[in-house]
């Protein structure tokens, strides 16, 4: 079964069409990396999947349900706020800038969703939160506030927070782009471990090594379109699309030039 199906999905901000007919199926358990130049629409696509943005045309299916709408007879009706909030439980999101709840400790950050949204007992949710934080290597930081954590630690808490909701698919929007270069590795390592659990993952990233080692498929986006899809080896070594070739050589060029693995992006 496909966890995510985008069919001719389009999204505009005003007159500016950012996504121009995206078609993509993501199977259960698959790890898909989305690469592409800055401004190509990676973030917007992820935000459409968990309905932080609403789409303008086409259709999006998440976890077997039409996202944001209901079909009644001949008519397509928009869902209300509560129904959309309910659908969002199927997706978990890890943001580029972490967005941890600043007033809550690490364990409270992870437990908030299970308590407030899933209705778990606080004690049980905190127990699960501690287990998850241990899995991302943060047993020592349960009671730390986000401001007391490094960027890498904050992003690992954010991953635990997303996992605590038991989503069908985890969305990562350039999770390491806002990190200092020496902190990128610890986050990628955690993501790699998460991938081994068999959960479906969609990762917008500039980390080509991660894409090669962890993903099942690589999607190349440019100018709001998917230009090429394929296995990581083939995409990264024998790209067909000229724009993908340019993109890859620009990326490896900047790597060799700057000597670190931090790709700049928006």
């Amino acid at each position: 079964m496909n966890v995510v199906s985008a069919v001719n999905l389009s999204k505009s901000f005003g007159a500016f069409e950012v996504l121009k007919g995206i078609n993509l199926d993501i199977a259960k358990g698959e790890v898909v990396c989305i690469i592409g130049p800055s401004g190509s629409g990676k973030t917007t696509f992820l935000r459409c999947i968990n309905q932080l943005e609403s789409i303008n045309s086409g259709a999006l299916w998440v976890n077997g349900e039409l996202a944001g709408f209901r079909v009644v007879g001949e008519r397509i009706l928009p869902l209300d706020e509560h129904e959309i909030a309910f659908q969002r439980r199927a997706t978990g999101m890890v943001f580029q800038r972490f967005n941890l709840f600043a007033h809550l400790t690490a364990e409270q950050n992870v437990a908030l969703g299970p308590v407030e949204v899933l209705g778990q007992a606080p004690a049980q949710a905190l127990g699960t939160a501690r287990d998850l934080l241990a899995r991302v290597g943060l047993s020592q930081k349960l009671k730390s506030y986000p401001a007391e954590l490094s960027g890498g630690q904050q992003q690992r808490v954010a991953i635990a927070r997303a996992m605590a909701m038991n989503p069908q698919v985890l969305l990562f929007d350039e999770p390491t782009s806002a990190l200092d270069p020496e902190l990128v590795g610890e986050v990628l390592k955690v993501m790699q471990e998460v991938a081994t659990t068999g959960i479906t993952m969609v990762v917008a990233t500039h980390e080509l090594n991660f894409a090669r080692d962890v993903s099942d498929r690589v999607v190349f986006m440019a100018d709001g379109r998917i230009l090429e899809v394929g296995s990581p080896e083939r995409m990264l070594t024998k790209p067909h699309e000229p724009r993908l070739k340019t993109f890859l050589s620009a990326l490896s060029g900047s790597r060799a030039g700057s000597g670190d693995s931090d790709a700049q992006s928006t």
Partner: protein
Amino acid sequence: MPASLPRLDIAEAVRIRRFRPLRLLLGALAIAFAIFVFRAFADAQIDWSVVWEYLLARITIVGLGFTILMTLVAMMIGLSVAVVLAVGFGSHNPVTRWICKTYVWLFRGTPQLLQLLLWYNLALVFPIVGFPGLGSWQTVDLMGPFAAAAIGLGLNAGAYMSEIIRSGLLSVDTGQYEAAKAIGMTRGKTLRKVIFPQAMRVIIPPLGNEFIGMTKNTSLASIVGFGELIFVMQSIYFYNFKVIEMLLVSAFWYLVVTSILSVGQYQLEKRFGRGFRRGGSL
């Protein structure tokens, strides 16, 4: 350490006390002014025994109690209104936003005293109020001094405090709304569990000022015959003519209450500053 540099430690540096003529002048002026005021009070033949007598008198304490009670009730009404207005300002519904704007325009654009008098005399406009299924009442009976003061002070404060709450809500990063949405929280829950707790840090300091301001504003309620501290003091000096003495008694109690509120404000600021210590200015 390079050999050419002398060994020294600025911890041993001499602390120089600079001569600051302006400071001295200001200090001297302040002391002179204090002496002048003190002399003036002394010459005015203030009957301190009367001040003492009424400081803890039962009637004073009752008036003080009503001042405190009115402050609490009016603030509660004001805060409820302010939260509704602030959330309404952020609504997607243009009608809601328009209603909120009109409210603030009306209540901020007319004097507080006028509003109190209008509420007190509401019966002239609506002689009878009724709720379907509950029955109806004479407005005069309902709108006594207490109700008029509570509503008049509360609704007015709500208009001002809505701006405070709104700026508090705006101070919270949009990433916080999105993160809350992303874990499936609704708008209401997001506001309650994520946004308001963080907005508090920005809201509390100016709200403390509003609380202190309200304590003093309750004295306006004396105009509609509400028996708070000033009303009580006035009714005493109308027959014993110890005007300054009575006013000093009330000044003392206002200072006590506002000082306690200031301490409480500081404690709350510390509490809601949690998680913002590093890099934060509070």
